[in-house]
């Protein structure tokens, strides 16, 4: 059984009448890539800021590495790396100087720091840009520099708050690969995002947040099993009458359907032959149809079913 390196109990943070964190409870084990998923305003960043002691909270306890997290607990802070949502680097310093500066906030030994900075540059593949200033870097390179600044001191726990916002797909993949590599090297990672694909791709465990508390948590498989939707079938260019729709609704395992502009979306519980049954019905009624697709449930479906709204609302 792995140890919990982050324990959050009954965390409450209010901004006047607005409750940003509502009795938040979280346990994160060593070695995990823990995804904190939720729409904008769900409390992810507030939770991160409280964990880092950047925000005072009204109630609750935060323990990191078994110690209570306080603004002056520098022993704990020493072992944490952060990659924040907004790129936090100096435009006036070069790539190398930036990484060296932020690493210097944790490592005072000059020789050791030099080695660490070199490793971070290699890790983020910024070797060709080491003498360039951030203003000359593309969005993707800038994000990589932002990550390098956060991880250069080799922290045990890395907190990443939406590190891929406004990044092109190629750079995003590179960043995600890097995060997985960091995890393989032994770092525990807390990763917040509202991009469910990313979270699905890299996180070993996921907590879905809304209105300042965790709605549900588990591995992606566990989360998907929690919901009714097992399969979503979409058929395009299919002319259907109200009678046809009523018939489809009565097919086995179908629990929801949506029909608009000749596109039929049918949600079924997890069972075999749902698609075959639906196509057989259309053939028996001599109804023509266009493109057909069948999808397994996504985290968005999980979120949709639990909260009744889309993840990106």
């Amino acid at each position: 059984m792995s140890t919990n390196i982050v324990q959050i109990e009954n965390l409450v943070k209010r901004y006047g009448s607005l409750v940003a964190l509502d009795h938040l409870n979280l346990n994160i084990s060593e070695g995990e890539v823990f995804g904190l998923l939720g729409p904008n305003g769900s409390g992810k960043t507030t939770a991160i800021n409280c964990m880092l002691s950047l925000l005072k909270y009204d109630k609750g306890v935060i323990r990191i590495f078994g110690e209570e997290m306080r603004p002056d607990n520098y022993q704990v802070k020493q072992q944490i790396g952060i990659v924040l949502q907004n790129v936090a680097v100096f435009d006036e310093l070069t790539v190398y100087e930036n990484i060296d500066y932020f690493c210097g906030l944790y490592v005072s030994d000059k020789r050791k720091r030099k080695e660490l900075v070199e490793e971070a540059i290699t890790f983020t593949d910024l070797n060709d840009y080491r003498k360039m200033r951030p203003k000359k870097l593309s969005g993707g390179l800038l994000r990589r520099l932002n990550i390098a600044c956060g991880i250069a001191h080799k922290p045990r726990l890395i907190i990443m708050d939406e590190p891929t916002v406004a990044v092109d797909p190629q750079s995003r993949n590179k960043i995600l690969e890097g995060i997985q590599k960091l995890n393989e090297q032994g770092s525990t990672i807390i990763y917040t995002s509202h991009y469910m694909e990313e979270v699905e791709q890299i996180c070993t465990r996921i907590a879905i947040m809304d209105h300042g508390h965790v709605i549900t948590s588990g591995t992606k498989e566990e989360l998907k099993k929690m919901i009714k939707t097992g399969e979503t079938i979409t058929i395009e260019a299919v002319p259907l009458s109200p009678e046809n729709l009523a018939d489809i609704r009565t097919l086995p395992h179908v629990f929801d359907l949506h029909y608009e502009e000749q596109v039929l979306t049918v949600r079924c519980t997890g069972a075999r032959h749902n698609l075959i049954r639906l196509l057989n019905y259309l053939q028996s009624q001599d109804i023509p149809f266009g493109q057909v697709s069948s999808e397994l449930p996504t985290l968005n479906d999980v979120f949709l079913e639990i909260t009744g709204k889309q993840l990106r609302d």
Partner: protein
Amino acid sequence: MTVFKCYMKILRQNVGMIIIYLGIFFSVALVMQMAAGKSENSLYANASIDIGVTDEDQGVLAQGFTDYLGSIHNVIPMENDPEVLQENLFYRNVEYIVQIPADFYETCILGDTPLKVTKVPGSYSSYYVDQQISSYISTLRTYLAAGFSPEEAIQGEKNEVHEPVTKLSSDSASSDLVPYTYYFRYIPYLFLGALCYTMGYILMAFKKGDIQKRMEASAISVRRQALEGLLAMGVIGAFLWFLGILGVAIMYGNTFWGSPLFGYYMVNTLLMLIVALSLSYLIGMFIPNSNILSGVANLVSLSMCFLCGVFVPMDVMDKSVLKFSQFLPVYWYEQVNEILSRHHTLTPELLRKIQVSMGIQMLFAVVFVCLILVVSRYRKEG
């Protein structure tokens, strides 16, 4: 010393701007000092012109009058031939021609007939010569009317004219300004301009994005970071102050170091530097982007310098403006500077004035520091 070094690295980006401010400061101080070095008396003496004189009288009074003109201007004796006179005037061999008639005493001294003069049209110097002649004739007339002989009248007039003139200064103190007066008068511009720009630039860099968050979450305490920042500011300020003092040492050498008041100058500039540092830090906290940084730095430094007697001497400034200026720290710096530049020794009363002005400068610095603390706290809690 990570934070300290970062301040210095960011400062490196501003070296060009600091050099520009230093260049402007040294140039203005040097030019103004050189211009002020030429006394008004010498300028007046230099305003002598070439005057042609034709003497038909050849008497004692006419000779005395010619000698008088010769004591001020360059007198060129001439033949009383209209063609020759006109030619000399046309080619500007002379600017002014005086024709003394044969009966000079009767016509010009006893009678009211003015002397016949010809001058270059539009020449300003000619007006002064007119006044000098008129003044001389009227003095001579007075002496002669009082019963003096022509020789005695000429001698009396001579004594009167060569009596030394004492120019009174508006504040009745000595008008002998020390040579480095203008140098120290302009120093606030250097401090305010350079520091507002550099502090604004550095603070803006640290405020950008989530840098502050990243630093707060790091393993170095916020207190230590602040102390390193303060140290960096102190070093930047001390460097600027050192350059200022080095400048005066190079330009004026022993004249400055030998002055019994040089210590007061040092303390006064140091206080001004502390005020400029705290003020520029306070302003830097509110600067949102680099586009307005340069404008704000110029606005603060120039407006304060214009209002507080840096660029315009306080003597000629409107009293209502000066009343307003008292609410600005540079005014009190200039007060001390004015006293130091006009006196070689300090009376107890002057010393008290200096202490009060320096104390007010310190108070300004304390107020600015308090405002910095309040704003920082408000922002952190907000």
